[in-house]
């Protein structure tokens, strides 16, 4: 029996483990579809500046609101710009801002949640009430305030979005930590006299990491939607930079006769969100966290 175990579960390095998880994720159709969509968008975002057929900001009065054709695959918008060019470029800012935004959310939300879960008591009470207070503020109003005060540059958007989407992660990380700290191995580490930092790093993080990562992946798709809403309201990316939210906003008045200029960015945005959601679910399953039976708090 012992020999079986060794061959079955040899010591694997981290890369092999990550590959194994990817393989498990891709083994189910939903995971495969999700991964493919996300991969497609990432590749597109990386290569689009080189493959875009037109200049994204070239305004041309002669080609206003053309229907899709061989020349302009997705047609043109009200300023005569090529919708295909703008659509494949439109995900770049959204992806970068929200990716780094989620990383920040994960970091501060995760660490604060773990810390509160571990120390408990008054510190935990106070911090959690503050987090609750922030949760009660409609985030979009607060975002609008920040953006109108500090401008719409990515240096402002990334930390601001990271902050607002991290609040939810605090709760998840804290609950996951509560599950773990009741276990004897934490008591044992405490009794040995390890510092709180060492307990967090060595004993808690390896056990809550998966739950927090999955939560972070879900937040990423929400953040995309949030970021696009900001752009839609005109507080995200400034024109003429192509962005899905902005494109939808600009073209929405013309929807009844130039539907193509709205549909392309909508498909782009929603496919990415669906892709990320499917991937996050497959990721959770591959890590052994079942979101269908166990609510993430």
């Amino acid at each position, binding site marked *: 029996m012992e020999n079986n175990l060794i061959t079955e579960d040899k010591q694997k390095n981290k890369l092999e483990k990550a590959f194994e998880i990817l393989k498990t994720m891709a083994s189910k159709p939903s995971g495969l579809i999700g991964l493919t969509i996300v991969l497609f968008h990432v590749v597109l975002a990386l290569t689009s500046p080189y493959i875009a057929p037109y200049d994204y900001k070239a305004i041309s009065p002669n080609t206003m609101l053309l229907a899709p054709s061989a020349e302009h695959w997705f047609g043109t918008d009200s300023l005569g710009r090529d919708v295909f060019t703008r659509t494949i470029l439109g995900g770049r800012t959204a992806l970068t801002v929200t990716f780094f935004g989620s990383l920040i959310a994960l970091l501060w939300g995760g660490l604060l949640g773990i810390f509160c879960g571990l120390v408990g008591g008054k510190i935990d009470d106070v911090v959690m009430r503050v987090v609750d207070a922030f949760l009660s503020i409609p985030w979009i109003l607060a975002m609008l305030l920040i953006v109108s005060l500090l401008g719409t540059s990515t240096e402002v958007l990334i930390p601001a979005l990271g902050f607002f989407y991290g609040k939810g992660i605090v709760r998840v990380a804290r609950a996951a930590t509560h599950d773990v700290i009741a276990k004897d191995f934490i008591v044992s580490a405490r*009794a*040995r006299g390890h510092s709180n930092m060492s307990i967090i790093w*060595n004993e808690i993080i390896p056990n809550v990491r998966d739950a927090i990562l999955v939560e972070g992946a879900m937040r990423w798709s929400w953040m995309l939607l949030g970021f696009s809403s900001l752009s839609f309201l005109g507080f995200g990316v400034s024109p003429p930079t192509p962005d899905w939210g902005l494109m939808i906003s600009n073209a929405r008045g013309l929807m009844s006769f130039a539907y193509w200029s709205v549909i392309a960015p909508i498909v782009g945005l929603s496919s990415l969100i669906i892709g990320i959601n499917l991937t996050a679910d497959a990721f959770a399953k591959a890590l052994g966290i079942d979101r269908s039976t166990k609510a993430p708090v």
Partner: protein
Amino acid sequence: MNEIIESVKNLSIGFNSQKGKQISILRNVSTNIKKGETVGIVGESGSGKSTLALAMMGYIKQGLFPLKGECLFKSEDLLKMSSRQLEKIRGRKIAMIPQNAGQALTPNLKIGYQIDEALRLHTDLNKTERDKKISELLNKVRLPSPETMAFRYPHELSGGQQQRVAVAMALAGKPDLLLLDEPTTGLDVTTQAHVLELLRFIAKDTGTSMIYVSHDLGAIAQVSDRIVVMYAGEIVLEGPARKILKEPIHPYTYGLLKSIPKLSLAGLPASMPGSQPQPGSINEGCSFYDRCNLATDNCKKNSPDLEHIKELDTNVRCFNYKELINQNNNLQTSITKKSNNSEANEVLKLKDVSISYAKQKFFDQLLNKISDQNPTVKDINIDIKKGETIALVGESGSGKSTILKSIAGLLKTKDGQIKFENDRILSSDLKMRNPNDLRAIQLIFQNPDESLNPNHTVEQILSQPLKLYFNLSGEELKKNIIDLLKKVRLGEFYMSRYPRQLSGGEKQRVAVARAFAAKPDIILCDEVTSALDVSVQAAVLNLLQQLKEDLGTTYVFVSHDLAVVRAISDRVAVLYQGRLCEIGPSQNVYKFPSHPYTEVLLGAVLEPDPDIKPKLVAEDIVEEKPPEKGCSFQGRCPRKIGDICNSEVPPWQIGENGNAIRCHINIEELASLQQ
């Protein structure tokens, strides 16, 4: 009497592994249950005993499926029945009593209603008849005041009472066969003895056949007429209870019986090497081959069949059973342990220690005092000598683990002092202790599944204390880890394993190694063997003893199991409701005279011997809080003498054997009473 109620024929149950391989966890099991007979099914965890028992009521857990064979209940195959047909049989013909009645009862329905439900479903009685029947049933299972009991909710009852209600519900349908799956495992020793006594009475009184599934040979010995021993999904031995327990002719059963610590024996029980094979890992040969000391080449290649031996009325699955037939008189042996030097210095002194779980009130918090007048643990005075093993014994709620936690600094004391080496006072706050004191006192926990970080390899687990206390790294760290693994008899290749890849015994060895990594002076053992199988328990006990003899460590050993304590400890302290009742050298505590509570505890111990019946001298009432005045044991004491027990705390008396007893009864009188 010889009518067969249920018979299992060549039953195999298995599952499909992730790789699509068919793995059987029950292999070719055949047995018969006769009318009025109690059959005990015994085996270690993973032996397939519960799967077999559940299959006997036509239930197969999700993911499992029958591979072949049948379960005939009165010549109808339960495994082929539709769920409609099974409904008519379950509860009415075959009833089950679950392990944890507290979880099996619906918490928001009254006891009477729940029994009534069973009656409505399984009988044709009308309302008044049913009401009569309910109080009859509650009477039968000996619940106090059955009239009011019916109107109570499950949470208002103690664990033992809940178990009795479950028995009453099972009896409601007048079943022909009762299935009991570890019905007493979660209960305290005294409660367990009472419930078993009740079950034995019911079996006799109603003539119901019973299948009693347990890992505990002591409990099995008390109730069974016949015993079936399971190992790795097979029946290895089957026969009359007395024969199996007194003259086991299968090497596994023999080893199992030898590895059970017994009250009558001082030393450590002999351990069996290895552990039970995982399902699907045996391809050829006998499943016990690896651990058997009678094994020959034949056993490696060929799997023995269950052979019927007429003169013994026994079935045995072994080629070499004849070697065991006439040498069984040495079951009552044990490994003598080196006793420590009683002249040694004291390393740890508990002086008037009280511990309270009560929350401070606001004003008390301001004045920084604790107002609880009746703390959970009170007036504990114990001096622990270097190199001795002192055991704290008591039922749940006796405060034994609480004391352990406060020694470790995990729980603040209310009053009193904990003195370490040279009478230096140890702070009861973990953060105030210096690192060297923290190193000197280490803990081993009950359940290694919880005490080892599931995401760390054994190497990472063992490196934690080594890095923390000795700042080791690189080659030196690795060398130390290998040394530690060697100490606990594990190979170097265990370093890269995760806890989930280890068996229960191996995990506990890693936990032991981690405690010893700190080179501690004192190790606090919190029920370290109670989550382990018997054969593994013996091995861990032997390991602990060996390490202690080699390294001179002091153990504070907490356990509810008096036989285990007898085996390992030099001195025993008996606790009831957080107060000391008796303390003394272990050979003397186990002799009379003893404190009435010790007497009760000792009387309730179940030995794997049908001739030693438990002596039930006290009621199994559960007290929630210690009494405010007088003797802590006043509520249950069988030898209570009067008002003095309720009003005054009894004085310490020292017997001629050297054990100190806290009782109002004169110690000589106590001796004559108990003889």
